[in-house]
């Protein structure tokens, strides 16, 4: 059975945030909501300090904590491994926001427009997909992958740092990269079995 997953090459990521903007454009998320983002953090001390980039989105875990804590059953895991939130059942308790070790779900307290008192044509169409008061998160661009396309963040990455495919297929590009380049997951001690892997950065000399 297919298990969709993503591999992000930290050695190639340049922190341009193209993936974040592509996600925002694809999902038409309101102001203040970022389903995919890139963390910037510093390691080392001057003169050997380094700026690092860590793209983050829902990890689509095999054992999702958000699903376990959801009181209404709004969060489910599809057969293809994608974890989705059903806004027709979500009551906006924010329990999933707390439960996720990766802070993936976002609660839309209210839908804020980019221009005060005015909605752009894009916002008028796009915001219809969102329900105020519910939680939302990355869904691997389900509508795109159902058409055979890749998620918007993968498709738009200028550094070719993102890969998407079937983790259960040992011959897929994602499986091969994880094996060859020692792919790792974030916080494995949480035992959530994320479907998003990272490839290590290059060593600083």
């Amino acid at each position, binding site marked *: 059975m297919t298990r969709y997953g993503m591999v992000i090459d930290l050695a190639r990521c340049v922190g341009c945030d193209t993936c974040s903007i592509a996600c925002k454009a694809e999902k038409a998320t309101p102001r203040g909501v970022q389903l995919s983002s890139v963390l910037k*953090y510093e390691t080392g001390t001057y003169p050997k300090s380094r700026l690092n980039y860590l793209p983050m989105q829902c990890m689509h875990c095999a054992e999702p904590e958000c699903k376990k804590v959801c009181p209404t059953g709004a969060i489910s895991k599809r057969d293809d491994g994608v974890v989705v939130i059903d806004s027709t059942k979500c009551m906006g308790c924010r329990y999933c926001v707390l439960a996720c070790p*990766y802070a993936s779900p976002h609660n839309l307290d209210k839908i804020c427009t980019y221009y005060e008192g005015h909605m752009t044509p894009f916002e008028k169409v796009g915001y219809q997909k969102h329900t105020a008061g519910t939680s939302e998160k990355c869904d691997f661009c389900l509508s795109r992958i159902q058409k055979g396309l890749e998620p918007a963040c993968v498709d738009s990455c200028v550094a070719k740092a993102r890969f998407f495919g079937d983790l259960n297929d040992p011959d897929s590009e994602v499986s091969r990269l994880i094996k060859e380049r020692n792919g790792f997951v974030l916080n494995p001690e949480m035992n959530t079995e994320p479907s998003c892997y*990272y490839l290590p950065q290059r060593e600083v000399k």
Partner: protein
Amino acid sequence: MDANNVIGVQKSWGWKVAIHLYLAGMGAGLYVIGFLMDVLRPASDFAFTAKLSVYAAAAVLIAGLLLIYSHLGNRANAVHALSLAVPSWLARGSIALTILLIFDLIQIGMPNLNSVLGIVTSLVALFVLVYTGMLLTSLKPFQFWRTWLLPILFVFSGMGSGFMLLGFLIALYGLLNGSVVAPSLMPVVSCIVLATLWTALILIFFLWRAYAVASAKDSFRIMTTGSGAMAFWLGVVIVGHLIPLLLGIYLSSAVLNPGVTLMLSVFVTLCGIIGGFLVKYLVLSAGTSAKLKVVGGGSVPLPESARFPASHRVQYR
């Protein structure tokens, strides 16, 4: 702001959830107290006090449920939380609270609580007491809350809050009716002393454990030396525990004028109510989530999201 020196704490659950947890625990505690009083009846007016407990429990539970309902972002879907099909502690607690309230309201009209329904309701109330702590303990990213000490702390805190409100109501009733000290007041004050002592001991162990666990130490610091320090030392330690403990012992042992007894009882119980709430509020607001661990890249604070404020702290390996 220096991103390396600011600690991120959870912001998703605030004062509404804290008050809900407090009232849920207090309401459940009140019912258990009322049931035990009705069964044991160590003093002549305990039947009346048991009834007062049941009434107070209903009022407090209704307030707690209304508050958590108002916290929801999409209230129309709240009914889905009453489904037994999910393993969520929030769902379990919602169902238990609803059952407790319904059974409590039924028993307001009954002559006594010593019945099968009373026993079942007491068990549900005990479950609600445990739920208030398990709701937080079940969250993996928050090591501050991931300890069996938290549900135990909240159980004792809930029972203590129940005694506090009951004592307050009995003393206030006495003050308003010609300074008459009800026979049940002093036993309730004695129970307040015991509950306060036990809660204090468990709180000490809880904080000791938080200090000892590296990933919970941030929360310990927030509560004791950080932004929660004044509320903790003044509100929890002095007002919430020392005053009820010392004055409660004095009240139990000294022979005082009825008016003085009642006024001191009102003061002691009010202090206990404030302190009990602050324990839950501070434990909730001090929760800090585990940082992300990146192989070869150190530990990274979580992204700016619905949970965190603008800046985070980075740890290096």
